[in-house]
């Protein structure tokens, strides 16, 4: 079978077409999903791509979380469907309370676009199985509201439960607490991160590395073997 992975477009989503292309390169079928539709078209997994949904006005992700498609996604995510939130998608997942914490303005107050080194802290999620825990990867990062914040207890719980999935290496670009770049839910099917794996899937494009491809191959293997 070919895995079918949905890619949601909210008003102001930017990286939906890139994410669809990355899913195709990884060997799955990308299925466009529209924010106004409750119907998830029977996809096996969903990616909430990056961008500035609703202009990031009010708070990043704050308006999108109320869209019809999110109702269905929350339901399916709680039932175990793999969901990946990238950048603005991560912000939406936090606003929708699928993941704990919130994102604040970068400590440097500027938009930051760079090739960012990350350490994969756990391979025990639907989206990181093809990495090895402790592996270092480099993928593009680009945000202005990327400073991950949660209360101390939540952070301690995330660490204790192995739910910190990625940590920034060398440079913490936005002041995220404990250098956190990405986290998962307790079940490991919902993952959110600020950097952009979909921009690191072709040798010639972007940073010239393909370190992001394993996100998509991880979930495809899981879906195909399930």
């Amino acid at each position: 079978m070919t895995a079918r992975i949905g890619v949601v477009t909210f008003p102001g989503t930017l990286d939906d077409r890139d994410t669809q292309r990355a899913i195709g390169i990884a060997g799955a079928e990308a299925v466009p999903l529209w924010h106004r539709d409750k119907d998830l078209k029977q996809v096996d997994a969903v990616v909430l791509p990056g961008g500035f949904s609703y202009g990031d006005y009010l708070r990043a992700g704050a308006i999108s979380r109320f869209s019809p498609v999110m109702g269905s996604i929350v339901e399916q995510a709680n039932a175990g469907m793999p969901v990946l939130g990238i950048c603005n998608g991560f912000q939406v997942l936090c606003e929708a309370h699928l993941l704990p914490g919130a994102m604040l303005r970068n400590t440097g107050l500027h938009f930051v676009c760079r090739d960012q080194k990350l350490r994969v802290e756990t391979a025990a999620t639907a989206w990181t199985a093809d990495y090895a825990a402790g592996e270092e990867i480099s993928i593009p990062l680009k945000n202005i509201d990327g400073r991950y914040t949660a209360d101390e207890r939540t952070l301690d719980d995330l660490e204790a439960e192995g739910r910190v999935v990625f940590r920034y290496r060398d440079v913490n670009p936005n002041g995220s607490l404990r250098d956190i770049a990405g986290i998962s839910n307790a079940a490991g099917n919902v993952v959110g991160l600020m950097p952009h794996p979909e921009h690191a899937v072709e040798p010639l494009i972007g940073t010239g590395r393909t370190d992001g491809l394993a996100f998509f191959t991880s979930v495809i293997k899981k879906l195909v073997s399930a």
Partner: protein
Amino acid sequence: MTLDTVKHAAETPESGQPWKELGLKEDEYARIREILGRRPTGAELAMYSVMWSEHCSYKSSKVHLKQFGEKAPQTDALLVGIGENAGVVDVGQGYAVTFKIESHNHPSYIEPYQGAATGVGGIVRDILAMGARPVAVMDPLRFGAADHPDTKRVLPGVVAGVGGYGNCLGLPNIGGEVVFDPCYQGNPLVNALCVGVMKHEDIHLAQASGAGNKVILYGARTGGDGIGGVSVLASETFDSTGPSRRPAVQVGDPFQEKLLIECTLEIFREQLVAGIQDLGGAGLSCATSELASAGSGGMRVELDTVPLRDATLSPEEILMSESQERMCAIVEPDKVDRFLEICEKWDVIATVIGEVTEGSRLEIFWHGEQIVDVPPRSVAHEGPTYHRPYARPDWQDTLQADDAGRLPRPADSAELRAQVLTLVGSPNQASKSWVTDQYDRFVQGNTVLAQPEDSGVVRIDADTDLGVALATDGNGRYAKLDPYTGAQLALAEAYRNVAATGAKPLAVSDCLNFGSPEDPAVMWQFAEATRGLADGCLALGTPVTGGNVSLYNQTGDAAIHPTPVVAVLGVIDDVNRRTPMAFGEQGQLILLLGETREEFGGSAWSQVVHDHLGGMPPAVDLEREKLLAEILISGSRDGMIDAAHDLSDGGLIQAVTESCLRGGHGARLVVPDGLDAFTFLFSESAGRAIVAVPRSEELRFTDMCGARGLPVTRIGVIDGDAVEVQGEFAIPLAELGAVHEGTIPGLLA
């Protein structure tokens, strides 16, 4: 206040009108009365005044700009030429590319963030209106002295505005420039370029034809933004008479623009429009008159149907408003429902505001009463033409006689080394990553090369790997010394930058930034620069496809350096063959292409070390530029060169330093016979580039250069972790990197 209808105007011919306050000259007002056979209504006066302003009518510049058409080289590549929103170029495989560069200088001085943001928004809508999906932006920026306090206000605001708007639209920012010079103090230059891609059959034009077709205004509601902005803000010299005279600032809403882009592209895909125009300067006045003027027939508009943000706006103000993120489409009646449906899908407000008529007049009504009845061509395309006097200024000879070759040169190797560090750490030559890291260069997933590479390269077809390359360049110091040569140097550099990445240069867009046209010296600079650019484009075979003129960039009597900024577009058949600038592999040979002469006039060295501007700029040889480009393209296509970097401001040492730092490898250089170390390192002779060649390819490459008559000199090898000039000095990469990377953050962070 009673409504000034057409009928009322005809009945009250002697009623006084504020034509002077609106920026019209007495003879212009008289001509409007002659065209209409009566006095204009208030709404008509508003339209004429704004459309006949310098910014919209190009009245001072168009006698010179027409050379771009008259001297245009013969080319099959040009699908749409000057006069439309943007030119369109055939890049093969059924694809067409449209690109244009524009200025948003004065607004960016007043409110840097919003000025720059709306500059990006405006040029993106121009590209969209041609039928293309915008795929990348670039921003050539010029500011006052790097250490001037006001630069700290203007630059961060402009950069945040460019990023804030462009990032939110999902357009990769792939190049541009950041230049500092005291001449731009109070007159920063914020130029913005956008490039878009479409299939040939998708080209759309701004014309209203077909009686009965509907006129649909869609996008943001109309508010009081920038009312009179076009004539007041963009055309008159800005002086500091206090905040009260400042016109309303336009605020950009990039989220609305992103919706407008996706909505418009979906409308294009379903072939729902017969003509389309974006709303920029002069808002509805411009869009309705240009659409009607370019089409067959007339147009009738019910102005009271325009959705407003501010219900108190008068009809004149609605016509003049420059509210952003609006478009105007001409749609056949049976397609209107589907058009509105797509707008609803994207949460975009759309309103039928009128229709194309059988007649030949543009007629505008306000609650049933006629307030405009004009021949649209007289508004849009038949504005005044000035033949402004121009004269070579007295000081030009003195300036050119002040030869930079006579400046004291470094006395020994230690001083030479120190000057190299001064140069690569000077604000103009330093790394601009503090600026460009605030722009998203990865979005859309097609960026092959981005700044600081010689040109930005984006893939336009993921199946065939077809791509386009773009570079913008301009050097006001060269142009001040000799505007004709300076314009050609800007063209030559952008052309060379495109070729250095392996792409074939095809076409040109230009943004001509000058002082007041009322000063004959400035007008002479303008005349010389346009003549130089037109001659240069003819020689290189790259037509000017469109662009923009920005005049009145001066404070008091002090004009900016004449600053023609030139954008060159090229095509690369296979982006896998692109040539980066980084020295990537130890042991490869570094070859210098072209000839090095003692040319220091206007050079970065003369500025940084001696704060000097005088003499003649480097000589231009356009045949040589063509040959160099052919060699660079062939070398890339045949896999002979692994890195290339053009030589321009800062000379060879600047280019070597950049290629070394980018690749993380050092270089050992040998001064060639017949040259002294100083000239070798700092000369800014044009028509040169450095390339890195694997040893196995050296003979094949030098044979090719020899056979075609391009001088090639082996100047060193990629090696170690320092830049070493044998017999002179060695500077560790870490030391070069620290000064090169540290300068801009040190000044601005």
